[in-house]
């Protein structure tokens, strides 16, 4: 009577030991929701079909929806450019102040660390719209410094209002990135007699930029979409102008869908590439280092 060799299990299966089976990564791919180019096509089609549908249901005595749209598109694009301007400036202000706040959060001085932590948490957990109102109604419409009057128009206030949450989020991104570096980097720098400031600016922060880029771009996307909030406080951005255009056309209900679809489409073609680029950068940095 011969025993089968140990390497071949007697049963038909190759092996019944779980550890011997090839490792198979459970795939979560199908649960992932991601914007795809065809979503943009879908939006464009919605925009187009609502336009033609509206045309088919209106009488000949008014301008066709396409004609109306073409009349207003240049203005709406200008409004959208203003949204981009607000987003870029808010991001710049928020990033500059937020970086300082984030660094203050890792300060060795207790009061600096605690107060910056509080400021960060306060503005991070406040609704953006409330912060916008806060900036609108608490800031004066002009400043008077030494006899020189500096006007403070609404759009500047909107930039300040939107940069507050950006600042708080950037602060957390900076703090998180600094803490995510291995402590060996700090120790090596310390043992080479770098001051804390030198360590931070020469060694730690340059390495953090890579890590901060994807969440920072994500934040920018969210901010861009949030710029339409400025319409509530009357800044002439794309939503405000859409409302005015609709009013000028006599509040025709058949115009609502095409106009707002157009606005959606504008945001999509601006934000989608940013989202794609972020995903690309994330996957790139995930492998290296």
């Amino acid at each position, binding site marked *: 009577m011969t025993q089968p060799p140990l390497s071949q299990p007697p049963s038909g299966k190759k092996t019944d030991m779980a550890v011997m089976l090839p490792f198979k990564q459970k795939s979560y791919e199908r649960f992932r929701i991601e914007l795809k180019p065809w979503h943009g096509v879908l939006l464009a089609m919605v925009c187009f079909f609502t336009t033609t549908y509206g045309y088919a249901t209106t009488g000949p005595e008014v301008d066709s929806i396409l004609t109306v749209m073409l009349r207003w598109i240049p203005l709406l694009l200008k409004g959208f450019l203003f949204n981009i301007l607000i987003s870029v400036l808010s991001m710049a202000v928020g990033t500059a102040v937020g970086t300082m706040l984030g660094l203050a959060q890792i300060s060795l001085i207790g009061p600096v660390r605690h107060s910056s932590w509080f400021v960060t948490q306060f503005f991070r957990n406040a609704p953006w719209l409330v912060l916008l109102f806060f900036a609108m109604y608490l800031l004066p419409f002009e400043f008077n410094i030494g006899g020189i009057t500096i006007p403070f128009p609404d759009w500047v206030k909107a930039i300040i209002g939107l940069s507050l949450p950006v600042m708080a989020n950037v602060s957390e991104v900076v703090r998180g990135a600094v803490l995510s570096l291995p402590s060996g980097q700090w120790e*090596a720098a*310390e*043992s*080479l007699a770098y001051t804390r400031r030198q360590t931070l600016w020469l060694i730690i922060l340059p390495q953090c930029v890579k890590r901060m880029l994807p969440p920072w771009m994500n934040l920018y996307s969210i901010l861009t979409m949030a710029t339409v909030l400025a319409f509530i406080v009357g800044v002439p951005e794309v939503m405000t102008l859409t409302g005015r255009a609709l009013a000028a056309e006599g509040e025709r209900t058949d115009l609502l869908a095409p106009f707002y679809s157009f606005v959606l489409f504008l945001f999509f073609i601006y934000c989608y590439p940013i989202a794609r680029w972020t995903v690309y950068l994330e996957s790139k940095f995930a492998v290296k280092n």
Partner: protein
Amino acid sequence: MSWSDKEPMISVRNVHKSFGDFEVLKGVSFDVMKGEVICIIGPSGSGKSTLIRCINALNDINEGSILVEGQEVNDPKLNKLELRKKVGMVFQQYNLFPHKTALENVMMAPIRVLKEDKKEVEARARALIKKVRLEGKENAYPGELSGGQQQRVAIARSLAMKPDVMLFDEVTAALDPETVGEVLITIKELAEEGMTCILVTHEMGFAREVADQVYFTDKGLIVEHGAPETFFENAKDPRTKQFLSQIL
């Protein structure tokens, strides 16, 4: 501050160090003369690494005294930066700056910390990279180098600061076996040139070859020490004997 090289370069006296309730060092004392090579061996958790990290004030101590060239390290008014300019350190995990090339890693500290002339530093850095046998790798990033190569860059980086003493904290422990040798050769050459070195190591053969004194630590105390021949041949303490029998 009046220190002459007739006196110990480093004098450790009755050092106690606790992390929370856990006392890692329970009264450690030893001396290191200029040009001496000291190896500290012992089981994991015996406080070897903590001990040498106290010498350049990466860890502060709770009690006792550490004099480095006559300067007290256990002093709240200590100028840590001045101390660290004299004491170089190499780590187990290399800790090179990954965003800088090998040459930049070596050049950065002398330029930024010692404020030396860039041209002079570059010449010195290139010579050091050659000395650790990494000629041609000057412009490689740490990620492109093997563990052994990275560790040699780390040694060159430390040497570029012209330290008086070098601390090596288990510098070969994270390396592949075949690259351990190249790092040990570099350290041996350094020791032969008269650099004062304190090494925490698990390489017994190497300790035997290069050390002037071998110290054995266990549970936060120095149990035994001696010249390598007597230490490895005639260990007296049972704990040392047991440790050596497990290792050798």
